[in-house]
């Protein structure tokens, strides 16, 4: 028996021994020390233990702000604004800061779907040869960058379809409408630039210029200028919109008007002002009756009169934008608001309206594709007119309204995606040939608006590629060479850098810029050092609006699709925008107006919600004639009772662990209605709201704010 016990004992001891061994292994030097790998070859501009800073361009939106990225031992540590860059003067927005969460995102595409890059390049070359040039289309991001130039060259000389640039941000900004309105009012197309900083009074008709509009940093700086001018009084800011945006939240006066009546209100103010000034209405404003407008817009006539009296003796800068343009009458609204500026006669003057300057190597204005042009593309795909689609820098399945049927149309085409991130579109691609992240890439980009100087912003890799990715420009050049013939001759470049040097060649020796260099090598070195090349001549285009006041402006009524009881106002999430959902820290940033993190909400006026029996965090279904989405209720005190609003930016079905299956996409509710400029009437829907379920404890929205402290919810009402 004792033998048995001792055997048992032995077994126990053996187990103990194994455990001890395991513990002791953990006690080795490894528990205290870390391994460190030195550089193979120390880059000459790197110093041990010192940070190296690289200038490049932010690619989180199309604005083109300059960045300086701090790198340390080959890792990108922090993005900071490039103080020399005229567009952002050393500042960045939240999305620029979070770029690194895209670069080092755990869910990036790690290599080509073809296994090897040679096979990938061959596949592209095969596509070039296999299809007729007219059957090949390129769809690219909004940024007017070197790749767009490269593809444009390729398309031009081979007869492919001209590349389209598209982004949801451009759709929400209604760039086509702004451009068309400029053309109609000034006789010259272009992206208007509003000099908020030097203005005295700003009337913004729906323009969310402090959020993601056109050039957020430039406009924010302008706003700061409006507010704290040393030489003049604090500028006043009035916002007309149906739902208080983050921009409207900064307004001195926020005027909730019915969606689609922005143009009428602008004209009515114009009429009142011109009547006060000269006793008679100018022809431009003759079509409107202020009393009737006030009624239609849902405000008091007195408010209009008050605004008019504010207008009379000062220069007012009127800005159209945001949801106001996303109406079926968006173009008329834009024209009406631009015309209102004529009363201040501020065109081309400080604090007034300009057309944006053309970038240094830009020949003419070019704007991103409007949704109707995208519609044409989808139709071509459906009909088989396009057989191969190359997508870069855009996620059309997510960013295009579902109703356009892009996803279904993909069945008819071979999709080549150059996405760095496994987004919805990339998941459908036959070939996924990932581009570098923007911080690993070469390039340049034209700054479309926001700065008086023509700016060509430069990009360079700040870190070596983390994964097995390849620059799309290199892939296209290599594929064109492999395809031979006209393709090879269209892109006769060694690589991407060679192409870029070729493109900026016209600037070499140009003495009007921020620097001048006599040879390409020096130019490129400085170009990278300073983060771009800026012409030192203010080149804003002064519009001619002499006739504006004497042409009657059309007053078309907006039409709303669907028979719901609420106007639907979608807006772009200022922190996430169209492509920020994959970055965990952007998800965790509170929305500026609602302070919600990580999710999608629908804003409803509290009084209306009470009527409908809705409370905070209730789950509701929002239905338009195009579709329906589900979201949490947010009782928003600053929204018209007849309106509901939703942020755009969430609702991904792919796009990495932080974005996937999170929130809802309001674009699913958009119908295929367009304004006269071809922009989508995204705010032209009427929706129904139905409650799905009650708020669950801890199951609602993540808010930074306190429901108790900010709204008094759960405090037990008034104090005794």
């Amino acid at each position, binding site marked *: 028996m004792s033998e048995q016990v001792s055997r048992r004992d032995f077994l126990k001891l053996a187990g103990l021994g194994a455990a001890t061994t395991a513990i002791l292994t953990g006690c080795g030097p490894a528990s205290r020390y870390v391994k460190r790998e030195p550089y193979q070859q120390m880059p000459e501009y790197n110093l041990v233990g010192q940070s190296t800073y690289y200038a490049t361009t932010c690619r989180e939106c199309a604005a083109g702000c300059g960045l300086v990225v701090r790198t*340390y031992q080959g*890792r*990108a*540590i*922090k*993005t900071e*604004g490039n103080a020399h860059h005229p567009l952002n003067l050393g*500042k*960045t*927005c*939240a999305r*620029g*800061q*979070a770029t*690194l*969460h895209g670069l*080092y995102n*755990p869910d990036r595409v790690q290599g080509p779907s073809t296994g090897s890059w040679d096979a990938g390049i061959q596949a592209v070359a095969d596509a070039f040869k296999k299809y007729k040039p007219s059957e090949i289309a390129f769809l690219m991001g909004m940024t007017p960058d070197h790749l767009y130039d490269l593809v444009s060259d390729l398309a031009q000389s081979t007869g492919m379809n001209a590349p389209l640039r598209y982004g949801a941000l451009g759709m929400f900004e209604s760039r086509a409408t702004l451009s068309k309105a400029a053309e109609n009012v000034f006789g010259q197309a272009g992206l208007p630039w509003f000099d908020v900083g030097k203005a005295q009074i700003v009337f913004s008709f729906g323009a969310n210029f*402090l959020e993601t509009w056109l050039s957020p*940093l430039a406009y*924010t*700086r302008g*706003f*700061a200028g409006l*507010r*704290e001018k040393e030489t003049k009084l604090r500028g006043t800011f009035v916002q007309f919109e149906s739902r208080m945006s*983050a*921009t409207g*939240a*900064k307004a001195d006066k*926020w005027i*909730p008007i019915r969606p689609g009546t922005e143009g009428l209100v602008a004209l009515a103010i114009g009429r009142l002002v011109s009547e006060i000034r000269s006793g008679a209405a100018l022809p431009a404003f003759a079509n409107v009756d202020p009393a009737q407008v006030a009624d239609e817009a849902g405000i008091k006539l007195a408010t209009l009169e008050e605004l008019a009296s504010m207008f009379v003796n000062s220069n007012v800068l009127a800005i159209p934008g945001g949801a106001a343009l996303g109406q079926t009458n968006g173009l008329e609204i834009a024209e009406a608001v631009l015309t209102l500026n004529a009363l201040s006669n501020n065109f081309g003057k400080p604090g007034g309206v300009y057309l944006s300057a053309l970038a240094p190597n830009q020949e003419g204005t070019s704007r991103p594709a409007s949704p109707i042009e995208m519609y044409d593309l989808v139709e071509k795909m459906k009909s088989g007119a396009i057989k191969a689609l190359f997508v870069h820098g855009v996620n059309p399945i997510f960013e295009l309204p579902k109703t356009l049927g892009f996803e279904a149309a993909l069945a008819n085409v071979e999709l080549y995606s150059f996405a760095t991130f496994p987004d919805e579109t990339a998941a459908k691609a036959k070939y996924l040939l990932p581009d570098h992240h923007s911080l690993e890439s070469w390039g340049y980009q034209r700054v479309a608006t926001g700065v008086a100087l023509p700016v060509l912003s430069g990009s360079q890799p700040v870190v070596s590629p983390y994964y097995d990715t390849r620059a799309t420009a290199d892939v296209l050049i290599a594929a064109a060479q492999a395809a031979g013939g006209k393709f090879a001759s269209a892109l006769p470049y060694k690589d991407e850098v060679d192409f870029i040097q070729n493109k900026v060649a016209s600037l070499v020796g140009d003495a009007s810029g921020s620097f001048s260099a006599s040879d390409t090598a020096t130019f490129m070195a400085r170009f990278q050092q300073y983060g771009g090349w800026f012409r030192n001549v203010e080149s804003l285009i002064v519009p001619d609006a002499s006739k504006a006041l004497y042409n009657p402006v059309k007053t078309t009524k907006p039409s709303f699709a669907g028979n719901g009881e609420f106007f639907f106002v979608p807006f772009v999430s*200022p*922190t996430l925008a169209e492509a920020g959902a994959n970055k*965990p*820290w*952007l*998800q*965790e*940033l*509170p929305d*500026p*107006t609602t302070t919600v*993190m*990580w999710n999608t909400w629908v804003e409803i006026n*509290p*009084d209306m919600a009470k009527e409908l029996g809705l409370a905070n965090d209730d789950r509701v279904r929002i239905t338009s004639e195009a579709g329906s989405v589900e979201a949490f209720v947010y009782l928003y*005190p*600053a*929204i*018209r*009772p007849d309106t509901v609003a939703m942020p755009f930016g969430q609702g991904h079905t792919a796009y990495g*662990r932080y974005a996937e299956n*999170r929130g809802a996409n309001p674009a699913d509710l958009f119908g295929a209605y367009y304004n006269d400029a071809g922009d989508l009437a995204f705010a032209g829907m009427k929706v129904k709201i139905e409650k799905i379920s009650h708020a669950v404890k*801890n199951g*609602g*929205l*993540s808010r*930074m704010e306190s429901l108790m402290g*900010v709204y008094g919810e759960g405090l037990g009402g008034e104090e005794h």
Partner: protein
Amino acid sequence: MIRPDEVKMSVEETGKWGMTINQDVCTGCQACVAACAMENNISFVGEEDSGYGRSMHWIRIERFWEGEYPDVRMTPQQPMMCQQCGHATCEPVCPAFATVHSQAEQLNLQVYNRCVGTRYCANNCPYQVRAFNWRDYQRPEPLSNQLNPDVTVRRMGVMEKCTFCIQRIHRAQDTAKSEGREVMDGEFTTACAQACPADAIVFGRVDKPETLVAQITNNGRGTKHLAELGTLPHVTYFKEG
């Protein structure tokens, strides 16, 4: 045994480093929040925890509502971070001396490695700006590549808070010293001030009257938040106008 000279109250009142925040131009865009998170290796905590008040933001932007629709308006956004109080209520209550007053920089220090996690400091902070590492928040690889080597990565169970980017202060002082000069005004700034698109945040030496931040602080229009508590905060707020 050392008998350091007792520091005079006036030093705590002015402080050394100070900040001004112009709420009139603050648009609430969250750039400062993101910049702070990126600079200071702040963890993100996910939807559930952030919704339950466990977010780790060192700076948050507060806003309230005034009035009823349609005359409703949002009160000026108020970025709220550690006020680096001269008479800090957080410091004396820590039993382990994990949060102490820096004599050299006149800042509230949080010494992470000394923190045992009683959370008394956070409880006693009238500004509620301290963030606690409720869990071991992980950054999935390769996100950790982005960590700033100048800032300690905090682990579970310790308190943290805005440091006025003390690593930048040290770096600037080190550079200045190696060049044999004083730190110049505007030579460096905190991550939040650096990012702020509207230049609403200004940072610098408040004890030197010629600096920008001192001039703004001393223009008489600013207010200190909860100054009635006698905490001697070193952040000055400017409301509207």
